[in-house]
């Protein structure tokens, strides 16, 4: 498993991906075509993805998790911020977008829409290989191998069109397409969310197995907390374009610091008819990312909100005993001015 990757430059301690101050605002145009407002989809987020880990990203719709994935893939242009791939800046002078896409690949949520309805499985997988210069025969031979890798018998599935496969089989083809270019980082954007539970479990097992086998690093985006808990090493919680909490998965599950993370946890369905949820942890819907609240974006739904939360935007600081655990909440940051926070000394 610990084979040395020739592309590894900075050694195991250098993050595979470093994201600094990433920002994307989508302009909203009125009827006359002038920009009237911005959707603040992703607003100044920074994080790292370590080599070989699975970083889970959770959050509700509109929190910016899918936009983040597309920004990392350069499918949309970022407004601000920088990306470092194994220490090298992506963009001018550093890693080209083309090279980035050989090392970072993505699996989309909708297994049907993300496959070309007129392409067979093998043609779809071979496409990327042909783009990077393989001949058709060579690319297709390799694509058949990749099909086998994701548990589909090439003799049976190579010639199938998307409508001739089930959702689980299609998602395996999608994963195979992502893997065909032999990436180091695979972004899984709600990749198992649309699957039936019985099939979801199969694909989750496959994803785990592939990670071990191919030395992969995952960015696993999902709204399903149980699934994220199952696959992730670390978790990043997003709310309205901001990171509200990040840390090792067990630490967050035991000691969630941010009120939003805690509310997400108590919104989970009980799976036990004798122990049903009695009161909803939050009221209302997440506000629109068009004009997000000032200060802390969660304050409008937060039970702990105080004037300081509206005035000052909390920054992502260490929370709790684990140094890798950080939260953006005044209530847990000593010296923030929040009545629940401690004195002037910063907690370790």
């Amino acid at each position, binding site marked *: 498993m610990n084979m040395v990757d020739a592309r590894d430059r900075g050694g195991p301690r250098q993050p595979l991906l470093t994201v600094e101050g990433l920002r994307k605002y989508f302009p909203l145009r009125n009827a006359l075509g002038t920009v009237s407002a911005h959707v603040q989809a992703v607003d100044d987020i920074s994080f790292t993805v370590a080599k070989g880990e699975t970083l889970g990203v959770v959050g509700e719709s509109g929190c910016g998790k899918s936009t983040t994935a*597309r920004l990392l*893939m350069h*499918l949309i242009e970022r407004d601000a911020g920088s990306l470092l791939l194994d220490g090298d800046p992506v963009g001018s002078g550093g890693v080209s*977008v*083309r090279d980035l*896409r*050989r090392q970072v*690949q*993505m699996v*989309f949520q*909708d297994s049907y*829409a*993300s*496959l*070309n*309805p*007129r*392409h067979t499985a093998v043609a*779809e997988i071979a*496409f*990327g290989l042909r*783009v*990077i210069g393989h001949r058709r025969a060579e690319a297709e031979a*390799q694509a058949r*191998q*990749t099909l*086998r*890798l*994701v*548990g*589909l*018998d090439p003799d*049976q599935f190579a*010639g*199938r*069109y998307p*409508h*001739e*496969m*089930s959702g689980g*089989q299609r998602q*395996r083809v*999608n994963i195979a*397409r992502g*893997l*065909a*270019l*032999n990436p180091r980082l695979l972004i899984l954007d709600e990749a198992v969310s649309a699957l039936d539970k019985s099939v979801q479990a*199969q694909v989750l*097992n*496959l994803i785990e*197995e592939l990670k071990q*086998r*191919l030395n992969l690093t995952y960015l696993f985006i999902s709204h399903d907390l149980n699934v994220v808990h199952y696959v992730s090493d670390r978790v990043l919680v997003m709310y309205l374009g901001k990171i509200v909490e990040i840390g090792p998965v067990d630490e967050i599950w035991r000691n969630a610091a941010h009120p939003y993370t805690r509310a997400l946890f108590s919104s989970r369905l009980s799976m036990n008819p004798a122990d049903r949820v009695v009161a909803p942890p939050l009221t209302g819907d997440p506000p629109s990312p068009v004009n997000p609240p000032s200060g802390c974006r969660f304050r409008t739904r937060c039970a702990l909100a105080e004037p300081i939360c509206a005035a000052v935007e909390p920054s992502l600081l260490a929370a709790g005993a684990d140094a890798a655990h950080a939260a953006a909440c005044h209530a847990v940051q000593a010296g923030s001015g929040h009545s629940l926070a401690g004195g002037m000394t910063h907690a370790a």
Partner: protein
Amino acid sequence: MTEIAVLPATAHTPARRPPQRGYWRNVLKRFLRDRIGLVCLMVLLAIALAAIFAPLLAPADPYRTSMIRRLIAPGEKGYLLGTDELGRDMLSRLLYGGRVSLSMGIAPIVLSTMIGGGLGVIAGYFGRHINMMIMRVIDVFYAFPSVLLAVAMAGVLGSGILNSLISLTLVFIPPIARVAESVTTQVRNQDFVEAARATGAGSARIIIEHVLANVTGPILTYASSLVSVSIIISSGLSFLGLGASPPTADWGLMLNTLRQAVYVAPVNAVLPGVMIFLTSVSFNLVSDSLRTAMDVRA
């Protein structure tokens, strides 16, 4: 991928599924089950073959006139479909006329599908400014009624088959471009195009391998529905003297020259019209059946 091992067999069990069939094979299967479409296709094939083999099939020279044998009713004196106002054999003229009329129905559509379809796909794929530039120009042309535009064009260019071909092509570019643009815009926003971009492929490659495969079907069906319009407009141009010029055998032109005889020999005068009607209706119905057969969901 350096070393790839097979996953344990537990990863999947073979699904019980019918044998693999391509999309177009399915379309063909469904089309063959459509009676009306099939009959109309037969009619079209018959007309096309008759036109192609006109020199072999025609009982007489379509251009030989005879003043004493004018406007003979169909079936009389050995003329299966009678003669026209100059005593030429109607059957032969209709057979030969099919060559001009069918070509004038199909050729402009083929040309405008290539040009308009290409413009529409480019506009739809790239969007934004490129879309704006292409589609606004198209819209200007689209704003004219098609018949008027064709007449105006042919009027400016002068009469003749080539000129009416050019004007018809120009007439059909805007509608085809608009359809191509709208289907391309839909396809372009699908995840699989984004996935193709994520592999690092360039725009040209994505258009050729991913977009075209998904838009040619709808564009071709739409274009095939325009063939009948093209036949009618080209006949109209000939009728007005802007298309084929006498003595060429052309259904539209024949309709024009025979119109004075409509009270004397009504059947003869109507025959070219019947051919135009039959051909255009068949094209429309075939195109309808094709569209139904291509609809995966039905």
